[in-house]
């Protein structure tokens, strides 16, 4: 089979893209000595020990549980707040609607570090510090605007006449919204949930600062595991692999709608 330049370039691109991931997976099945001592493309002493360690050591697996908890909370809160907001922006025109819609997006333009101090101080004061809901709420800062933008795009793709026909037919608003409208933007809700999940899952700064013990996320756990015996390279690698898994699973479900989501629902 002849491989032309274009295919070769693509293969090279894929190779470089997958190399770090391959190396991570490779490491996660090795023992620390091998990682530090020898160069090997495949583990010489294949071991599940790193994974076993993560699933048995509470300081590791509670990190996952904490992360999943606040990510799920955040996704639910973001969606339930953004759905009515997006409907409003998509269907009604009111004073300052365009400005407000844009202002939402500007919330994503400031680095989370800016909000770190107020959040930290505020949560300390009201006693939310080191709880899951604290992180979930903090992440709403950038997930709600994103969710509103994506959902608005999908909702505006539904002709307004459908709403009107429903009202003419005698649907009450809640009934129309849940039985007619939501099914129409299913894909949009899926994509939005994915984006909320993803941003909340990978966010480290807020999650790490606003928690200490009880709600410590996995990413924070990973940066703090230096034991007396030095770095546990294999364990870290296994944790890294496991951190990627939820993302991969979620992506699988929304793979067909991803592009539309990145375009904020406007295609």
């Amino acid at each position, binding site marked *: 089979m002849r491989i032309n330049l274009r295919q070769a370039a693509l293969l090279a691109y894929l190779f470089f893209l997958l190399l770090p991931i391959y190396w991570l997976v490779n490491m996660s099945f090795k023992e620390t000595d091998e990682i530090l001592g020898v160069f090997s493309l495949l583990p010489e002493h294949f071991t599940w020990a790193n994974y076993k360690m993560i699933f048995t050591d509470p300081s590791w697996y509670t990190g996952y549980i904490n992360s999943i908890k606040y990510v799920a909370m955040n996704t639910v809160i973001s969606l339930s707040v953004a759905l009515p907001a997006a409907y409003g922006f998509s269907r009604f025109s009111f004073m300052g609607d365009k400005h407000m819609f844009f202002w939402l997006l500007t919330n994503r333009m400031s680095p989370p570090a800016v909000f770190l101090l107020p959040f930290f101080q505020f949560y300390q004061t009201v006693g939310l510090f080191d709880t899951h809901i604290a992180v979930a709420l903090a992440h709403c800062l950038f997930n709600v605007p994103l969710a509103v933008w994506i959902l608005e795009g999908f909702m505006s793709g539904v002709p307004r006449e459908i709403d009107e*026909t429903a009202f003419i037919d005698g649907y009450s608003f809640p009934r129309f919204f849940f039985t007619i409208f939501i099914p129409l933007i299913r894909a949009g809700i899926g994509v939005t949930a994915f984006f909320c999940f993803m941003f909340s899952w990978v966010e480290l700064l807020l999650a790490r600062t606003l928690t200490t013990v009880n709600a410590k996320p996995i990413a924070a756990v990973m940066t703090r595991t230096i034991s007396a015996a030095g770095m546990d390279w294999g364990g870290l690698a296994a944790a890294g692999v496991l951190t990627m898994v939820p993302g991969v699973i979620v992506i699988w479900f929304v793979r067909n709608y991803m592009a539309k989501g990145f375009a904020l629902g406007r295609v």
Partner: protein
Amino acid sequence: MAFSLSNVDKIVGKETYLKNVSLTFESGSQNVILGRTLAGKTTLLRIMAGLDKPTKGKLMENGADVTGVSVRKRSVAMVYQQFVNYPSLSVYANIASPLRLAGMAKAEVDRRVRETAAMLHIEPLLNRLPAELSGGQQQRTAIARALVKDAQLLLLDEPLVNLDYKLREELRVELQQIFKARDSIVVYTTTEPTEALMLGGNIVVMHEGRVLQSGPTAEVYHNPASISVAAVFSDPPINRIETRVKGGFAELGRILSVPLDGHLTGLPEGDYIFGVRSNHLFLNRQHERDIKITAKVELAEINGSETFIHVIYNGAPLVVQEEGIHQRKLGSEIDIYVRARKFYIFDAKGPLVRAPRIEAA
């Protein structure tokens, strides 16, 4: 049951959509609203339905003021130009939804859905989703959903515009029969004069947000109140020939003198616009009394089995509608024939002065 609008205005921003519209519709009547795009037809329907509120004016239903009453509390059904169905519901559930919401018994819902579906020939499709239907079938579903609930006001906003020619013809004939059998007020908007004529009933001619004329369709067609009505109510728009009447003669286009006889007899001297519909202009002499006009060919447009020949006569454009396919060389001079008795006479300012006598068919 009667529905009326009085002095309705609709202004959005600086744009006037409707200006002083007053109309009355009787139950069991079929009403066509004819107007070009942007004439305000859709705005009018939306206000009648209660989807939009008029800026000024009143809506009365059986003597009760329904201005600003929510559409949910009104007895209205509407069919849009676009095919609007609930995509997530089957055709059956789509048609049944207004009945189910009204809390009707299951057996009765089933009976009425099947009856309406049969009327619109979509019975075999009841279990499908709207996306699995052709455009025509989707619109049939939308019409069925509007018909099934027996609303007092049935509004159709150019329902056939997005369908292809064949389907449109077919559905138009069916709709005509369906409308006749109902005692609700049917209001149907269209841009096509031929469609308006086929549907019959009453007509409201609209132009730029105003009602120009209303009345029985045939009567309005034969007696357009002004040149604007005649222009909206002919396709292609009625031909205008600037004419001066002087000394017992009409000078067509100020050059061709025609004696004043027939319905032109005794026309006072002055400037007029003579209007003649394109289908009354011919390429061949039809009658010995035909007037011959010599004009220059601009364009020959073949439309199905007809040809529209656009010509320039003394600086003014005319369109000749001729059966069959005709080729004429562009720029060549041709003779056009017309009977003087087919002329509509309009005042130079627009109002109708005289209409041709209607011949017994």
